């Protein structure tokens, strides 16, 4: 089972590598989807299922869909694909940088497999991530209101920016 979590971690790094060395944004989003699906599985294996499902719904279902729509607005007729030497060079270069960092930083002999998971609270079985996020409504009410206000503001800003047709900042829409 711990090898499964180890492979989830490796696929997370591979997804990040696919995003960083992408040939065009269409293929970079594939790496982002892989990284978030695998990250969701990783959080599930550690025990915090609520936070991982929030990642799935809000990140994949909300933000990435909006991102893909905006990427499709900046369309290219002939995007560059994965099989070019430049992309391979970028990928190998990034992996080399990280490996050199690990070797020089001395993290090689400290690589352990141990992972801590979340507990339930004895007989009462309280999930820690549920009760943690519920503090958003009690102690973190100020930040909650600020985040909601920021999201509402962003909505109106984007609405005005892409108004187009001789009134917005982006006129080509």
């Amino acid at each position, binding site marked *: 089972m711990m090898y499964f979590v180890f492979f989830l971690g490796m696929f997370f790094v591979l997804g990040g590598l696919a995003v960083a060395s992408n040939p065009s944004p269409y293929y970079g989003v594939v790496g982002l989807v892989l990284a978030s699906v695998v990250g969701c599985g990783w*959080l599930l294996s550690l025990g915090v299922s609520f936070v991982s499902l929030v*990642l799935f719904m809000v990140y994949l279902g909300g*933000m990435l869909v909006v991102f893909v729509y905006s990427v499709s607005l*900046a369309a290219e007729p002939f995007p560059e694909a994965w099989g070019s030497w430049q992309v391979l060079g970028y990928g190998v270069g990034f992996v080399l940088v990280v490996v050199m960092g690990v070797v020089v930083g001395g993290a090689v002999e400290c690589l352990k497999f141990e992972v*801590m998971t979340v507990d339930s609270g004895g007989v009462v079985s309280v999930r820690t*991530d549920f009760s943690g996020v519920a503090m958003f409504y009690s102690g973190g009410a100020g930040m909650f209101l600020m985040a909601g206000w920021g999201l509402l503001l962003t909505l109106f800003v984007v609405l005005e920016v892409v108004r187009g047709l001789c009134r917005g900042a982006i006129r080509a829409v």
Partner: protein
Amino acid sequence: MSLLHLSFYSTFAISSLGLAFHRAHLISALLCLESIILSIYIALSTLPIENQTPSLTLMPILILAFSACEAG
């Protein structure tokens, strides 16, 4: 360093390099920014697990809300 800590730390490093070296399209830099935020989310979610403090769980949710603002 534990292996899982190394995973999100190296994802953060690789995505930062991708942000610095984006080649053709500006939107690929924004994609690397999204990947940075994803690795920060995973790191902040493993923090309450390892320290057994549930109240730190609201930090990744807040990061998700602000990264939605930034993506918009």
